């Protein structure tokens, strides 16, 4: 299957309108980037496996409010065609396993569980990989921090980020209100419609699993800290 063929099939599987050509390939190293929901990963893995792509890496990332998995598929036989797919997990941290498709996922997923507490459903042996088997913590989570000073710095940054988000939201609210006042008759339609994404911002720490609802949420969060990761 050609790179274009992959892309058109992939477009139907990722979160709508999220599939883009990788920007700044020289610097960032990705040919294609996209966002996916946990439901789609098995179909995507099958697609890539059939097309001769290898599962290069799975990275688990803690964004403090939620956790993410970044899947990397690449042609490991010739010219690179690196796909980076970002998956945001909901509060249950659950994701279906793709270890029955890719052998390399077996340990990558165990590592994600071991380090970040990602619950991989359907994994044949989801146990600690690098840590002792009776460990009761997930070391790479951001709240695992033994350095008191660093913990304070991180808390401050987080408070600032949340405050900025709050400010942004207040601004959006004010704009909506102003819009409503200006456009008399259409105001009702706008106010009934507008609060929906605004509500989502309040629940940035508890995103729903619904990809459609997620999209406006992420756009509404101001680009302060984690906006840049995307």
């Amino acid at each position, binding site marked *: 299957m050609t790179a274009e063929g992959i892309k058109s099939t992939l477009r139907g599987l990722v979160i709508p309108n999220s599939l883009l050509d990788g920007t700044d390939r020289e610097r960032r190293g990705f040919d294609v980037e996209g966002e996916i929901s946990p439901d789609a990963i098995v179909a995507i893995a099958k697609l890539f496996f059939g097309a001769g792509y*290898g599962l290069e890496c799975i990275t688990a990332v803690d964004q403090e409010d939620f956790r993410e998995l970044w899947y990397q598929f690449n042609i*490991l036989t010739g010219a690179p065609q690196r796909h980076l797919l970002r998956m945001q997990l909901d509060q249950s941290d659950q994701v279906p396993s793709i270890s029955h498709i890719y052998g390399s996922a077996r340990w990558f997923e165990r590592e994600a569980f071991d380090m970040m507490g990602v619950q991989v459903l359907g994994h044949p042996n989801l146990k600690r990989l690098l840590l002792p088997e009776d460990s009761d913590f997930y*070391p790479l989570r951001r709240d695992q921090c033994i350095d008191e000073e660093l913990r304070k710095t991180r808390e401050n940054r987080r408070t600032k980020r949340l405050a900025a988000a709050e400010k942004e939201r207040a601004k959006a609210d004010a704009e909506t209100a102003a819009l409503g006042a200006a456009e008399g008759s259409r105001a009702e339609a706008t106010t009934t419609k507008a609060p929906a994404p605004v509500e989502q911002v309040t629940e940035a720490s508890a995103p729903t699993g619904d990809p459609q609802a997620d999209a406006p949420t992420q756009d509404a969060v101001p680009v302060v800290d984690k906006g*840049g990761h995307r």
Partner: protein
Amino acid sequence: MSGPSRKLAAYAEHPRTPEFAELRFGNLEPHLIEAPDDGTYYLNMGPHHPSTHGVLRLVLRLDGEKVIDCEPVIGYSHRAHEKMAERGLYSQFLPNPSRMDYLGGMIYNVGYCQAVEQAFGISVPDRARWIRTMVSEFNRISSHLLWFGAFIMDLGGFTPFLLAFQDRENILDLLDSVTGSRLTYCYANFGGVTLDLPDDFAGRAKALIETQRTHFETYKKLVTDNTIFRSRTDGIGIITPEQVHSYAMTGPCARASGVDYDVRRAEPYSIYSELDFEVPTRTEGDCLARYLVRFEEMEQSLRIIEQCLERMPSGPIGPDRPLIRVKTKPGSYYFTCESPRGQLGWFLLADKNPEPWRLHARTPSFCNLSAMIEVLKGTMIADTIAILGSIDVVMPEIDR
């Protein structure tokens, strides 16, 4: 009661059920811990068996001498390098990468620097790039030489080990004169290298290349053509291209199975696009093929070094003052380079703060070793040691 004492008590009281086996063996695949009732038995190999090159533990289920099932248990030298990266500046992580893979330390050190430079647009002067490539290739040869010695020793030959260590010693001396350290290098820094080459470097390096070539001839006569060595490796431990694909294996292990992939050529970084070298591949996929691929690779590395010595430009070797605080640019970045064992990848997630949000090292042996679950099935116990030696694992790199 908690931890080991709780376990001991449970062990003493437990009826002999599958859970009992779990208590004895810990984190194993479920099919391994089911108490076998068919005359098969378990063998626990490692974590300090001489052939495991570090602290790898293999739990094997055997039928006579035949391996039915296998599970590598890792994590004994986990030092949380990725966690360390998150709590300091980018430059404070500089000494760590070479501790991940102590045999390819220079390549890890240079690789991390290049990952950060590429991400944040730090320019590197020409001379520094050539020096980096040259010392990396020296490092690759020294890593392969150690593998060569240890591999033959696993198979029962002691002499090549001593010869290989003498050769490796020469390379370490040479790198010592450049970098000031012998094993865990912190030579490259952001924007260049820390020290320039000493005056007598070119002469010493050329002499070393000459000697090394004659020694390779000796090794060929001593080992490659040796009947005992051939019978221990020829046709043993075949890794199929399908397994390479499924387990994302890279490096010499993949190239010995006919997968023609080398990061230096597929995604040329630094100056590799300007250099003339070949990527040796073989199609057999057995231990002998992996041996031969590594041998040819060492010769290609010598070629690269010769070109570097010939074309070494003059000029500055780095910034005037070391770059402590990197000006970051938020985003996700991935940089790969070819370590002696395969594709080393640095996944970096940066925000505007001076420390990385997340740094993930995709280490080659991690994938290569995970394939052993399949590769070792159906082999003989004596061959297990040969196969494990031939894939060349470095445990600290897997455990990180």
